[in-house]
Each structure stands twice: as structure tokens, then as C-alpha cells.
């Protein structure tokens, strides 16, 4: 699971162009949206695409993303349970 969390941090930084953020600055429990990493609605869509492309997970209801994308912990937990890739 810790490998997956590290992979997610690296993917998020690269795919969301978080130029001034380092992997070690993202704690597993940090909120990804709002006062945490400060991601926005377009970033949320990018994360939905990333789940599909990299892990074979299609979110039928984008609202599901709210809980899944709360933090690296919640993302990693959801991916570990539902991934097909």
C-alpha cells in the first residue's frame, strides 16, 4: 500500500502540474482539495481520468469522487479494492 501511495503522489504532481510541490510535502492524510493541496474542479476530472486510464476504475457517479479523493489514504484504499490494472 505504501508503494501505491508514493505512486499516487508522483502521478498527482506530474499530471496536475504541481510544479512547486514535492512528494514528501504531501502527507497521506492531507486533504487534496480546499486548504490542502488546493486542487480544483478540473483537477478532479483529471483524477477521474487517471483512475480509469491507470487503474481501470470507471466512476459511474462523479459525486463518488468527493469521498475517494479526500486524501492519498482514501484514494489508495479505493484503488487497492477496485483496481483491474
Amino acid at each position: 500500500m505504501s508503494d501505491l501511495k508514493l505512486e499516487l503522489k508522483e502521478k498527482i504532481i506530474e499530471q496536475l502540474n504541481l510544479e512547486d510541490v514535492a512528494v514528501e510535502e504531501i502527507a497521506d492524510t492531507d486533504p487534496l482539495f480546499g486548504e490542502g493541496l488546493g486542487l480544483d474542479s478540473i483537477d478532479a476530472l483529471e483524477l477521474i481520468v487517471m483512475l480509469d486510464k491507470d487503474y481501470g476504475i470507471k466512476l459511474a457517479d462523479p459525486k463518488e469522487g468527493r469521498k475517494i479523493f479526500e486524501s492519498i489514504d482514501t484514494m489508495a484504499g479505493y484503488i487497492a479494492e477496485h483496481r483491474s490494472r
Partner: protein
Amino acid sequence: MNSSFQIERFCHIRNHRISVNGEMLFETPETDFAAFIKASYKSLGLSYSKFFKMDNLSKLAFIAADILLKNETEKKIALVFSNRGSSLDTDRKHQESIENTADFYPSPAVFVYTLPNICLGEISIKHELHSENAFFIFDSFNPSELQAYCSSLLRTSNSEKVLCGWVDYDKGKYDAFLYVVAKNGIFAHTSEELTRLYQTI
């Protein structure tokens, strides 16, 4: 054409150089646009994380606008930009992502920049402008059309100033020439003077 308005200041970004009123502000040996614009961002001391999410056209427009507006207190500033390639560079990236139906993962972050006037929105957000804006597509820098439109806007709308000019990016080639038009300034707001200033650097 004569005009009662004047140009307060202008900025060029081309050939890995940035200048204001014809004087060099920043220069780097980096010829690659991505490296050049990132070095410009750092050199100008900017801290705006959303910058790195923008497409290249928006980055170019954003830096030129920020240089001209950073000490500006007037908020009634209309934006009138123009270019040759529209958002074609980003349009191509989006097209590439949707061509292969077996690997169909278009990026929402790319798609949102498939309009040239998105760069006007980025500037409006940063500088809190709630003003009129327009983006024209011309074959080349068109001082007479811009001069006429700008003057009309200043006469008929509630805009006190207009940030106007040319910002073009395609396939790594870039050229920006933005200027601020107001009631008072130091350069005549005429087609002839705009042609001269555009060619200054």
C-alpha cells in the same frame, strides 16, 4: 488615424527576451519556450501555482499582462487581444488525445484551453478584472483594427483603460506585444505608432 488616447507602456516577449517600453527586463539563453517561460516566472518573483496548469498561450499572455498590470490600481481595464493561431497549439494536443479510440483518454485540463480567450480569463482572475474583453484572429499584428476597436471601447464603455495587443503561440514559436491604452500616456495611440512600437525589439 488620430486618437485622443495614448499608450502608457508596452511589453514585448519574443526571442527568449522580455522588454518593457523597449528596455530589456529579462533575458535567458534558454531557447525552449517551456524553459524560458518558467525562468521568466521565477525571475519576476511570481507566486501563482495555477500558472503551471496553463497552456503555453495563456502562460505567454499571463506573464506579459502581469508585467504591465502588477502596479496598476485601476480595475476598469478592458482586455483586447489578438493572434494568428488562435488556440491551435492546444487544439492539436486535444485532437491527438481523441484520435485513438482504443486509447481514448482526453485530458480535461488540456480541453479547457481549446479557446484563445481562456487566457483573458486567467488574466481577469489574477488581476480581479470584471471588464469587457475580446479576442480577434488576424493574419498578422493589425494595428489599425486594434486601434479603432480600443478607441471605440474607451469612448463607449465604462472602461478607463484597455490592455491590448498581440499574443501568439504555435509549435514553440511565440510572440507577445501587449500595451496599455489610457487617456494619458507617453506614446501616441495611432496605427503608425503601434506599428513602430511593435517592431521596436
